């Protein structure tokens, strides 16, 4: 069988596209439909209510506090992840014995199930046993165990740390890509001209790495926004809703309160935010640096 030349590429691509359309695009459309209806349980025919669910969600304080927490979550994670990844990538970009092993195994935190990540840190931060509290008390920083998940502020900060710990190695590898693409001759020439390490970093590495950092901040933002399992398994949005970001709110509304349509409305709003952010960010990144 011989396919015409212009059809052929589509024959290769069609299975993947159809699969993604059926499993991502179609449900996404269903979510929009669901958000315009009043549905009590999954599978039951709904009643059209127009934008009623949106009106309800947008006038609800829970939605706005979750949006605010999501924003805070995304920004703190993106910053912490990027800083950790930058330090790690700069170190792993050097030559030292064992650098190949270090580069391969740094992603260890990413290849294990989230449930295990959660269990590890719950144990390490635990007030009975664990490692962190005994260490803190030994070094005299505190005299009583710290309840890391007991108060909204510390719970939030602890979750940011755990999530960044989980994801920064992934970002590190992508950052290494940007670093390895900087030609070594540039550094050699700068050295001969008498530029010190700091000058070489600020005049060569940083400007050439900046576009990569921009892309990675966008990727980090998208990754962080979607994080649900770490939060759900460690604090379930608590204490006092201090860690209830938008994905947690969506899950709670749908599977604890069984208000499917409202959950869908929140989900659609979150999608609009995120897509809008992704579009603006990629446009901005695509522009030449001078125009920014």
């Amino acid at each position, binding site marked *: 069988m*011989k396919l015409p030349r212009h059809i*052929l*590429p589509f024959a*290769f*691509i069609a*299975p*993947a596209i159809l*699969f*993604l359309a059926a*499993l*991502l695009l179609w*449900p*996404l459309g*269903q979510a929009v439909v*669901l958000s315009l209806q009043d549905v009590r349980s*999954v*599978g039951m025919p709904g009643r059209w209510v127009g934008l009623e669910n949106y009106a309800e969600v947008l006038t609800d304080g829970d939605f706005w506090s979750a949006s605010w927490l999501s924003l805070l979550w995304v920004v703190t994670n993106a910053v912490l992840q990027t800083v950790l990844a930058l330090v*790690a990538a700069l*170190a792993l970009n050097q030559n*030292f014995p064992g650098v*190949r092993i*270090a580069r391969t*195994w740094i*992603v*260890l935190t990413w*290849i*294990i199930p*989230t*449930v*295990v990540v959660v*269990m*590890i*840190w719950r*144990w*390490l931060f635990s007030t009975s046993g664990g*490692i962190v509290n*005994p260490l803190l008390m*030994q070094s005299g920083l505190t005299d009583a165990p710290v309840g890391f998940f007991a108060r909204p502020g510390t719970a939030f900060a602890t979750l940011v740390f755990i999530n960044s*710990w989980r994801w920064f190695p992934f970002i590190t590898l*992508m950052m*290494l*890509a940007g670093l390895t693409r900087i030609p070594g001759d540039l550094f050699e020439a700068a050295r001969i001209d008498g530029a010190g390490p700091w000058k070489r970093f600020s005049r060569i590495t940083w400007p050439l790495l900046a576009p990569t950092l921009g892309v990675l901040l966008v*990727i980090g933002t*998208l990754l962080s*926004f979607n994080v*649900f399992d770490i939060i759900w*398994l460690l604090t379930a949005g608590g204490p006092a809703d201090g860690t209830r970001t*938008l*994905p947690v709110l969506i*899950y709670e509304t749908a599977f604890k309160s069984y208000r*499917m349509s409202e*959950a*869908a409305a929140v*989900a*659609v709003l*979150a*999608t609009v935010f995120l*897509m809008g*952010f*992704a579009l603006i960010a990629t446009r901005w990144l695509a522009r030449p640096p001078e125009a920014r």
Partner: protein
Amino acid sequence: MKRPLRWNIALGVVLLLLAALVLAPFWFVLTGSVKDPAEIIARLPTMIPDNFTLQHYTKLLAASDYPIYMLNSLLVATASTLVTLGLAIPAGYAFFRMSFRGRETLYRAILLAYAFPSIVILIPLFGIFAKLGLVDSRLALVLVNVAFALPFAIWLLRSFFAGIPVEIEEAARLDGGAPFTVLRRIMIPLVAPGIAAVAVFAFVTAWTEYVFASVLILSDDKRPVPVGFSGIIGQYQIDWGLLLAGASLSILPVVILFAFVGRWFVAGLTEGAVK
């Protein structure tokens, strides 16, 4: 390039901190899983276990459904990996080796899959799967995992396909190879490292997925490790030994896989990313 001594010291310190940050938690989990219950919750944590015991592992394997969870996860993750490869390789080949109308648009549309919260589709997907009778089946998990891994898998293949000289392909085509034959005989062997990278990514995605599995799987004997494991956490609130043993075992398959093909995954990420 030679570094002055103080930069070597700085590098050494950073690398040590990095190693501690990434590895120390795993060290405490692995050693904790072979400690006596009393030693696990000792006020002063021990770096090296005083006593070596396999009691937690024996208990885990004999008294819980953990072996079944492991088997389920292995089945689901392997199937997800194979399906992802089957879809991503032809698509990647077409995207990065052939020119056609709408290529850029389609490619971007695929990457947009990363710009929506995956939890959005959980509710409708549950409804769709319920209609198809797929709820509480391992097939449902395979489908979901492939959907999550596929966009990034295609993206990962980019640099591997792009790196192949056009001449090789043209020569094969002049020799009369049909497109599918060229892909199978010439391209697939050449992008084998890229395929390994995609395989690692797809396997890890499936191995670690929790949320959809927790909603889509209802019966205990079909649970994958993450869901089954969180169930064990719930049942035995404070049996840390059991949990540490379970954690260690759940890390094992991905660590073994990564030991064999992990460097290709790393190469794929560091060479393919941010182009």
